C-alpha cells in the first residue's frame, strides 16, 4: 500500500507508535521544514552540523517517551503543521537557553544570541514556505507513484521533468521523447493537471475536512511570495 493512500496522520501515528518505516518517512518528510526554520531563526547555514543536531533534537522530542507524540491529537483543528511548528519553536527556545547558560560548552556551537531572529512573522513565513515545499515534494512523489501505473503517464512526468528540472524547451524535449513538438505541449498540459490533482490529494491528507476549493485556497495562501 502506498503511503499516499492514507492521510499524513497515518505516517505520524505510525511514527508515534514507533514504526521504523513510518519514523523514517516522518523524518524525511519534515526534516527539511524543521531545518529551514532553525536556519532562519539562528541565521546559520541550512546544512550546518548545528542545524542537523538541532533537527535531531526536535525529532527526539517527538519520539521519546512522553514526547510530543503523546500530546498529538489529530482532531485538533489547527492541524499537524501548527503542532510541528510549536514543537520546533519550543525546542529551539530550550536550546537557546541552554546555550546561553553554558557558554563554553554550548549546545549550539555556532549560535550567537544576538543574531537570533525574533520576528514571529518572519519565522512563521519561513516555516510556511518550507512546509509548502514539502507539500510540493510529496505531490511529486504521489504523481510519480501514480504515473508508474501507465506508460503515458510516465512519459508525461518525464516531459515535465525535462521541462522544469532540465529547463529544456519543447523543441528539445520532443526528440527525446520521440514525439512531435505539438504533442509536447499537450503532454505538459495534462501533466500539469495531474500534478494539481496530486497536490490537492496531499493537502487533503492534512485537511480532510476541506473542500476542493478550500484546498486550492490553502495552496494559494502558501504559494504567496514572502
Amino acid at each position: 500500500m502506498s503511503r499516499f493512500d492514507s492521510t499524513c496522520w497515518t505516517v505520524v501515528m505510525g511514527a508515534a507508535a514507533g514504526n521504523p518505516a513510518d519514523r523514517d518517512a516522518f523524518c524525511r518528510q519534515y526534516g527539511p521544514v524543521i531545518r529551514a526554520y532553525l536556519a532562519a531563526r539562528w541565521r546559520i547555514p541550512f546544512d550546518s552540523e548545528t542545524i542537523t543536531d538541532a533537527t535531531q533534537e526536535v525529532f527526539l522530542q517527538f519520539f521519546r517517551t512522553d514526547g510530543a507524540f503523546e500530546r498529538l491529537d489529530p482532531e485538533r483543528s489547527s492541524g499537524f503543521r501548527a503542532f510541528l511548528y510549536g514543537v520546533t519553536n519550543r525546542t529551539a527556545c530550550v536550546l537557546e537557553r541552554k546555550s546561553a547558560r553554558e557558554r563554553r560548552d554550548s549546545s549550539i556551537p555556532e549560535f550567537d544570541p544576538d543574531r537570533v531572529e525574533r520576528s514571529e512573522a518572519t519565522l512563521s513565513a519561513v516555516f510556511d514556505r518550507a512546509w509548502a515545499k514539502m507539500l510540493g515534494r510529496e505531490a511529486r512523489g504521489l504523481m510519480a507513484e501514480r504515473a508508474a501505473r501507465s506508460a503515458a503517464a510516465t512519459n508525461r512526468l518525464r516531459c515535465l521533468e525535462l521541462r522544469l528540472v532540465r529547463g529544456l524547451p519543447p523543441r528539445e524535449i520532443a526528440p527525446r521523447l520521440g514525439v512531435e513538438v505539438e504533442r509536447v505541449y499537450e503532454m505538459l498540459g495534462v501533466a500539469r493537471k495531474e500534478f494539481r490533482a496530486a497536490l490537492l490529494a496531499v493537502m487533503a491528507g492534512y485537511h480532510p475536512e476541506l473542500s476542493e476549493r478550500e484546498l486550492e485556497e490553502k495552496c494559494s495562501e502558501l504559494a504567496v511570495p514572502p
Partner: protein
Amino acid sequence: MPAPADRDDSYLDWFLSSAFDAADGESADARVSFAEDPEEEAALPERIGPYPVAERLGRGGIANVYRVVDPELGRDLAIKVLRAAHLDSDDLVRRFLEEARICSRLQHPGVVPVHEMGRLDDGRPYFTMKIVDGHTLARLLRDRGDPRRDLRRFLDIFERVCATLSFAHSHGTTHGDLTPRNVMVGAFGEVQVMDWGFARTAETRARRAAEGADAPAPRILGTPAYLAPEQARGARDEVGPPTDVFGLGAILCEILTGAPPYLGDTKADLLLRASKGWLDDAHARLEACAPDPELVDLCRRCLAPAIADRPADAGVVAREIREHLSSLEERLRVVERERIEAVAAARQERRVRRLSLALGAVALLAVLVPGAIHLRNVQDRSARRAETEGAIARSTERARVLLADDRLERTTDPAAFAEPLKAAREAELLARLPTAAPGSLAAARALVSEILGRRERAAEDARTAERLRNLRMHFTDARTELAEGRTWRLGADGSRTWVEASPFDAPSPRLDHAMIALGDGSILLFGGAPTRDGPLLNDTWTWDGAAWTRREPRHVPPVRTGHALSFDPVRNRAVLFGGNASPHGTIAYHSDTWEWDGEDWHRIETGTSPPRRDWAGFAFDPRREVSLLFGGRDSDHRAGDRYEPYGDTWAWDGADWTRLAPTTSPPKRHGHRLVHDRNLDALVLAGGQYPGAPGYDDTWLWDGEDWRELTPTASYPGRAFFGMAFDRARGRLVLHGGRRVPEAVLLEDTWEFDGATWARVAAAGPAYAWSPLAEDARSGGLLLQGGSTGPNRSRNVGGRFAEVLREAGIDVEALDAEAAAARVRESTIRRELVDALDEWSRFENTPPRTGSALGRKLVLVANLADADDWRRDVRDALQAGDVERLRRTAAAADDAALPVSSLALLASSLAIVGAHDEAIDVYRRACFRDPSDFNVHARLADLLEFTDPDASDEVLRLLSVALALQPDSLRTLNSLARLLSDRGRHREATVYLERAVAVDKDHLGGWRRLGRALASDGRTDEARRAFEEAVRRGEWLAEVDLALALRELGRIDEAIAAARHAASMLPHPSFPRAILGALLGEAGRPEEAVEVLEEALRRDPFDATAHLYLGCALDDLGRLEEARASLERGLRLAAEPEIQEACRDRLEVVEARLGERPGD
C-alpha cells in the same frame, strides 16, 4: 467542479517549480513560469504573413521564433514575431525593430543576417533571418560535462565571438546580453551571436538622453548570472563596450569552470551578487581549474567590477585570445616536435644498440673504428643543442629589439606588448626542450616576467591616467564653496601670528556673515550661510573673549548674507543694514535697518533707505557721529544694460538715512571694507571689486566730509570679500585673506596699514574669504570666525589628487620636489601627471607672490618634471606675476602646435593675474583647438559669466557644450538651469535640474531649485514633490515653498500644515507665519489667521505682508477699523510694489464698507 476558465490555478506554478527543483533550494524565482502564455499554448499557426510555418523554434523575451519556408526561393528561414501581448508597449516594439535594424547593419559572419522586416495584419512586427541549424553554446557546454574536455574547441568558439563583438563595437554597437545561450554554433562550426534585442547604439543612447525625465524608469535588462555590475544596478547610461567585455568574461568563465560568474538560488540573489560584483566564488573556481594563467588573468580582467579596469572593448579581448591560441598552437607544435624528436632519438638509440650488439661479437671492428659511433651520437646531440640555442637566441633577440622600441617606453596600451611577449614565450618554450642548455629556461622566464611586468605597469598607468582625467573633470565641477567653522586669532599675545582658538561651542560653519566689536568689548556675529548656495542663517552669537554664546533674542532679522554691520558707540547700538536674502543664483536683497541693543534686535522704521544691496562698507564715523555706508551690490542694479555696483555714500544717524553728496567718491564697488582707523581718526576704505576688473588695491579715506584717495608707499594685493579691523593694541589697521577676483583664488596673507603704507605680516594665516575680522578687546588681538577656504575644500581636493598620485608611486607631500619630479619624469603618463599637478596647484591657490607652500611645491615639481619649455615659461611668469610676459606668450602662441592643456594653463594664468580679455581669448582658442575638452569650455563659461554680463548667449552655448561633454557635471547643469530660468525658459531649466538631482540626489539646494523651476513652469504638483524631497533633506526654507505649492494645488489643509511646521522650525519670526496666516484666511479660518498674524507682528511689527494679511482677515471678521489700520500700516511699510498695490486694493474695499455703515 468549476470550469477551468473559472479556476485560478496560478499557485501551481510555484508548487511545480518548487517540487521539480533539482537543487531543492528556493529556486522558484529563477525558473521560467510553466504557465506558458496563451499565444504559445495555441496551436502552431499555419502561416505567418506569406510564410508557411514549419515549426516553432523558440521563445525569446518578447517574441516567438518559428521556422518558415520562403515561398519564392524555397529555402528555410527563421522568422521572429513580437508577441501580441507586447504590441501596446512602444518601448518593446521599438526594441524589437531596433534588433532587426542592428542585425541588418552589422554585416559580419558572426551576426545572423536579416532578410526582411514587416508587419502582420494584426500589427505585430516581424523580421526574417537566416536560419541557424546547430546548438547554442550553452547546450554544448552542458553536454560537455567536464570543463577540461574540448577546451581548445571552446576557446576557438570564444575567439570568434570576440571577433564578432569587436566588429560590433567598432561600429558603435553594444550587445548587452552576452551569454552562452545567445551564441549559436552551427553544424559546420560557424559561430553566430544571437539576440541583439538589448543592443545599444549611438542612436539609442542619444534618444534616451533626449527622453531625459520622460524616459521609462530604468529596468534591469539581461540574464542575471552573467550581468555586469552596471547592468545589475540598472545604470543604463554606463552600458557600453566594457559591459560586453564583462559578458565575454562571463562566457570564458563558464568555458573554463563550467559555471557562470554568479551562482545563486534565486534571481534576487543573482541580481544582488551581480550588482555588487561579488566574484570571489568565480575567482576561486578559476584558480582551481587553472588551465593556463594567461586565460585566468584575461578572464579576471574582463570580469573586473569597475568598468575602467576591464579591457576597453572586445577587440582587445579578441587580440589577447588570438595571441593565446597562437602561442598554444606553437606550444602544440613544439610538443609535437619534441615528440617526433624523441621518437627519432629513440629509434636512433635502438639502431645504435642493435649495431652495438651486432658489432659486439666482433670486437675488433669496434677497435678499427674507435668511438666513431659514439662520436656520431655526440655530434648529433651537439648539433641539435646548437640549433636549439640558436633559436632561443633569435627569439630572445627579437623580443629585446621590440622592447627597445621608444613607443613601448611611453605606451599605456598593454596590447602593445603582445609581439615581444610572443617572442619571449617562444624562447621560453624552446628553452624547455631537452636540447636547450642549462640556464636557458631561467633566462627565458626572466624575460617573460619582465615583459609581463611592463605590460602590467602600462595597464596601471592607463588606469591612473583615466582616474586623473576623471578627477580633473570632477574638480571643474566642485565649485560650491563650503564654510569652515574655526575661530582664529591674530596677535592675541602681541605677536603677529595666527593661532587657532576654536572653542568647543561655536557658531556653525558659515561664510558671508557679519561681525562687529561692541562697546563692552564683546563681538557680535549674525547670519551668513553654510555654503554659497545657502541655506541662509539668522542666528545671533556673541564672543566674550573666550567663548561663543548663542543668543535667543525675541526679534530676529530675516536670514541673510553679505549684510553690513557697524557699531554706534554713542547710542551703544550695533546697526545692521541690507544683505542678500537668497542663496546664490537668485536675486533678492534686503534694504531694512536693524539695531542690536545687547539683548534683542529691533527693526527701525525709516523714512528713506539706501537701495537694497549686499557687501557694502559700513562703519561708524565719530566725527559726524553717524554710521557711514558706501557702495555695495544689487545684481538688478543696472547702468544701461550692464549690472554695476553702487558708488553712493549714506549716513545713518540712528533714526533715518541720509544720502550724502561728497565731491569725490571711490570707484563703484562691492566686497570692500570700511573701518575706523584710530591713528588717522578717519574711516579707511580698502579693496572690493567691479565686474570685469581685478580686485581693487587702493586706499580711501573719509574725513567726515569727503572722500580722498590715499597714496601709500606700498599697497596690498587687490582683493574682495576679505576681513578688516583695527587692532588697537598694535595701532594698525589690519586686513586678511579674501579672494583675488574674478578667478576664485584664495588669499592667506595679512597686511597692516600704519597710515602711510601697507606692509605684509610675515607669518601666513589661514586662507579664507567671506570672513569678517573684528577686534577682540577682551583678549586682545583680532578675531576671525568661519569663512570659506575656497571654491573647493582644498583638503578634499588636494586629498583626492594626492591619493591618486600616491597610488601611482608619487607622494608629492612626502617626497622632496626633485624626487617627486623624477618619478613623474619616469612615468609613461608624464603628461597626464604634469597636467594633474597644474590642476592641483591651481586649486591650492597659487597666485603670484602669495600662495600656500604646497601650492608652490606643486608648481616646482611640475616645472622640474615637465620637459616642455613653453609650459615651464608660463609657470615661471605666473609665479613672478609677470603679466606682460604672459601676454606676449599668448600673442605668440601657435595653437596648432600646442596641446589644449597648455593653452588652458596659459589662459588660467592670465586670468589669475587679471588679464581677463587675454584669458578669454586664449580659452576661446583652446575651445577651437579641442572642441571636446570639457575643462576649457567650463572655465571659459565661468570667466565670461563673471566678467561680461553681455555674454550670456555665449555662456549658454559654452555650458551646453560642456554638458554634452560631461553630462553629469552638477555645476554645469545648475548654471544652465539658472541662465534658462533668468530668460523665462523654465521648462528647459527643469530638465537640467532634474538631471542634476538624478546625478546627486543629495546635493544642496538641488530639489528646492527644481521645485521653484517646476512651479514657475506651472507644474505645481511636481514642484510639490520636489519641495518635499528638499524638506526631507533638511532644507527648511523649502517647507514654505511646499506650503505655497500645496495651496496652488488646492490642498489648503496640507498647505497650512506645512506652513505651520515651517513656522515652528524657522527662526525667522514672521515670514512663515505670514504665509500661514494668509493660508488660514484663505481657508475661511480668519480667527486663527488673526491670531497667527498678530503673533507674527508681535515679533516683527514691520512686516508689511503680515499687516496686509491681517487686514484681510480682520476685514473678513468685520473688524473694519482694525483692518483699515493694519492695511494702512502695511501700505506704509511695504517696499514691494505688489504688496503696496494689494494693500491699496483691500483698503479701498474696507473703506467702502466703512462708508456703507449706518451712522458713518
